[in-house]
């Protein structure tokens, strides 16, 4: 209390200066490590990065060589994910914004989506293992992994698509309907083109998320070591995040620079996607105004 009386004797402006300095310090404490982290990753990773690292298969128990099958596997996995999740998610979003009435069912769906987004990723992994790998007998495979990741990113795609669709002014729909367009024509010719940037942003964010997740593919798709490319969707694949986990914790006596380089490739891939999404959003926001 003594401290408080002392403090209250200071002029309000001095208090404000001290408080703002405190806020700035907190912000720096949160954000500076991020930049530091990036700097370290880039600094240490770039030296190990080379063309052969990106195009060679892992050798010597992953202690040397490259990560080519890992990168390709990630791309396949993510490609499959988006191919499944995007049509489903956009269709669900269209249903919710354009067709669904406000009733109990819609309310349940909305609650379901919110909760789907909050489910821990390892639980998705369990679900994928139980349903796709075991019950549907897809085995530990690219297909199982993509399906699992697709469910993981569905909420992202649905919510962002819903927002994008809802941001198309109601007056556009009215104008189109009043011109004698059917409901679907209105959606296809008028609503979707206007919502496309938002939907794309969501899709890209989903790709980034899918590319970075480890837990859901842990038991559904990821191979510990597979020095060649998968032959079919029923083969397991190597994936970057899982590979990083493996070389960071499971392989003793491995050179630090391979770890840093792998981490850098993963981060670059994921952040590249995010930046792309940010740029798209920024571009269209500017254009709309």
């Amino acid at each position: 209390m003594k401290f408080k009386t002392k403090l209250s004797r200071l002029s309000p402006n001095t208090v404000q200066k001290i408080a703002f300095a405190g806020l700035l310090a907190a912000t720096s404490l949160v954000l500076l490590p991020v930049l530091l982290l990036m700097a370290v990753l880039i600094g240490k990773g770039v030296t190990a990065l080379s063309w052969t690292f990106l195009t060679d298969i892992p050798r010597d128990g992953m202690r040397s060589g490259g990560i080519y099958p890992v990168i390709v596997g990630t791309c396949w996995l993510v490609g499959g994910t988006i191919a499944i999740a995007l049509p489903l998610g956009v269709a669900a979003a269209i249903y919710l914004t354009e067709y669904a009435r406000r009733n109990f069912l819609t309310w349940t769906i909305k609650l379901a989506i919110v909760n789907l987004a909050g489910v821990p990723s390892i639980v998705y992994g369990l679900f994928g293992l139980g349903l796709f790998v075991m019950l549907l007998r897809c085995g530990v495979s690219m297909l199982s992994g993509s399906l699992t990741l697709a469910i993981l990113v569905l909420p992202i795609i649905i919510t962002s698509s819903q927002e994008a669709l809802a941001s198309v002014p109601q007056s556009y729909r009215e104008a189109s309907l009043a011109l004698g367009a059917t409901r679907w024509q209105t959606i296809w010719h008028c609503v979707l083109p206007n919502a496309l940037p938002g939907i794309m942003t969501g899709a890209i964010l989903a790709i980034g998320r899918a590319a970075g997740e480890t837990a859901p593919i842990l038991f559904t798709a990821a191979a510990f070591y597979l020095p060649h490319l998968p032959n079919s969707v029923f083969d397991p694949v190597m994936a970057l995040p899982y590979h990083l986990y493996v070389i960071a914790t499971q392989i003793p006596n491995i050179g630090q620079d391979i770890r840093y380089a792998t981490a850098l490739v993963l981060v670059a891939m994921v952040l590249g996607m995010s930046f792309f999404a940010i740029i798209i959003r920024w571009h269209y926001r500017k254009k709309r105004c």
Partner: protein
Amino acid sequence: MSTKYGKLARHIGEFVIEKMIFLSGLITIAMVGLIFLFLLKESSSLFDTVTLAEFLGGTHWYPISDPPQFGVVALLTGSAWVTLGAMVIAMPLGIACAVYIAEVAPPFVREYLKLTVELLAAIPSVVFGFVGIVTIVPLVRSIFGLPTGLTGMAGSMVLAFMAMPTLVSIAEDSIRAVPSTYKEASLALGATEWQTLMRVIVPAASPGIAAAVMLALGRVIGETMAVMMVTGNAAVIPSGLLQPMRTLTATIAAEMGETVHHSDHYFALFAIGALLFLITFVINCLSNLFVTNVKKS
């Protein structure tokens, strides 16, 4: 002009499309139900051999002993410690950061700060785990003079960072959503910006901030990889943050690979999954409640 036939085809086509869209919507909801039902179904098999009380109250997690013991108290305590530690670090820092970005930072800096926060959100959790291993773990070991840095403390610190984007961006949004008229009214009465912040804006935004905290909490409890990589993975009941410990999530991730399918161990891991699902479900519903309250007022 469109012929009668063309019109009919159009009608049929639209009927099909609309039904397909409806089906997709249903599939999505079905997924959530399916996830929960699946977890329930798989974990229910466990309770043929183990009672619910033994599972929830048992202090020993010895899944491969003979006979095996499946008590999750150690894992729950581990999760609780790590989560608590992470929230203690993340809440003050995150809220301060949100306030700074929303109200104090000059406009041109604000955009960069938000960008950095989004950057943080995009970094995969394995990368956090990896960076945690090479930076935070040795740091914790040397600061506290421990035999190993792989402790709950390291986990909390990593998780605090991972919770930051959710916490900061949602809290910042809710602070910015406070009508500027409140601020103007307060400033017009001669209050300083800081007084206005503390007495008007932050209280007005508090439901949104609470929602942000809840969502961040959900994220922290559900986080798997990073935690698994830095907490040391000892399945004993910890007495403090400076010990190795193991969380619910890490247990599933670490052990599922080595279980025999459809064994009790396998089912026990699903039971943990169901438990996690329930915990996050409750947290989500709570934060949702805050958000709808904000919207109503």
